């Protein structure tokens, strides 16, 4: 169980944004992506998760093990908390682990409609989804936005104990100090040069 990225270059709207991105994440480790806004963190994560094709380079991790999550995490207002998590469990073909409710302190909210929850609670339901789908390689884009300090602590506990300890991998783009010792990848030096080739516009230059 390893995530190997070799010489990856990604583009946004036909213009190369990052190039020469290479790293390896062992099982049980995480990687924090740092860099100013607009550098291409989201684009890189979406490419790693396979939502968009890379310009060049290889991303390799075990088949059907990746999962992507951004701060808009697909919460339906009219479903209850259990129904939402059960839905994602069905989609991923896993059993709904009941430990996830206490891991994200959602025990008291099981039958509450998501629409009636606060922003922080909604975000916790979104993150609880990651616990439910049982995917080993997680690509997280700003997972801790609009989370209070207590919830961030809870998320990092879950990430550390229930995910990384079980041999999971996580690539996280965040500004908040998550308090877990994980290597950091500074993206600023990796941004593509102004006339870097490979973008679909390159034909026209």
């Amino acid at each position, binding site marked *: 169980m390893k995530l190997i990225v070799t010489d990856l270059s990604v583009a946004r*709207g*036909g*213009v190369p944004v990052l190039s020469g991105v290479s790293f390896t994440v062992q099982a049980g480790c995480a990687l924090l992506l740092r860099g100013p806004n607009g550098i291409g963190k989201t684009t890189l994560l979406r490419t790693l998760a396979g939502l968009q094709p890379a310009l060049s380079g290889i991303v390799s991790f075990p088949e059907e093990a990746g999962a992507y999550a951004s701060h808009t995490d697909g919460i339906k207002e009219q479903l209850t908390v259990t129904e939402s998590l059960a839905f994602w469990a069905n989609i991923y073909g896993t059993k709904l682990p009941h430990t996830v409710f206490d891991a994200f302190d959602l025990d008291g909210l099981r039958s509450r409609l998501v629409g009636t929850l606060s922003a922080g609670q909604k975000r916790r339901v979104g993150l609880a989804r990651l616990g439910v789908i049982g995917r080993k390689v997680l690509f997280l884009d700003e997972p801790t936005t609009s989370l209070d300090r207590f919830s961030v602590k809870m998320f990092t506990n879950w990430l550390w104990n229930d995910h990384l300890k079980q041999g999971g991998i996580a690539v996280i783009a965040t500004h908040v100090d998550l308090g877990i010792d994980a290597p950091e990848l500074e993206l600023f030096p990796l941004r593509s040069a*102004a*006339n870097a080739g490979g973008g*679909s*516009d*390159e*034909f*026209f*230059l």
Partner: protein
Amino acid sequence: MSIWEYANPKKFITITTPLVPWILGLAIACLVVGLVWGFFLTPDDFRQGSTVKIIYLHVPAALMAINAWFMMLLASLIWLVRRHHVSALVARAAAPVGIVMTLITLITGAIWGQPMWGTWWAWDPRLTSFLILFLFYLGYIALWEAIEDPDTAADLTSVLCIVGSVFAVLSRYAVNFWNQGLHQGTSVPVVTGGRTISDVFFVPLVICMMGFGLLFFVLVLIRTQTEIRVRRMRAIQLRMRS
């Protein structure tokens, strides 16, 4: 020089720029000769009187309207399979020309049919299928205009063109089913090769067809060059900004 040489937009422009004036001149010559010959020198049809002279506009335009759509279909397939930038732009360039050809077909068809049918628009199946083709063109152009990112636009319009072609052919036969049809038989049945019109009408018709074909070709070349230059400007501006 394989066809994929044209993949490079700059080479496409350098190759086609010298050709444009020649083809344009040839197209205008063919059109003038064909139309003048057809308009002045051919006798009237005993039944339809002089309205038969509209054939020199109606049939070539109809031919071009249909061929334009299939050319766009081909260009879309090439784009989806080979990511061939110029072919996506050729498809985009051909659409407005195709819609003008369809418009001409509709106008001449309505005018031609008016004396016989007694009304300006008699929902004749073949003319109606051109009306539907007109709607397909409209949707296609609207989709191109609605999307900023050129690559996404090219992909989506290609998918629309492929699905649209299937439904256009389907509509062609559904319309026949829906109204028996008053249209004149095909003047130049490509399949059977026989001709239902006598020689004296036929030669100018072929010249007109060549004229329309060349004009269509040169219009697409001009518009494709423009689309390439627009893409080039966008690429440069994006690079300068980043």
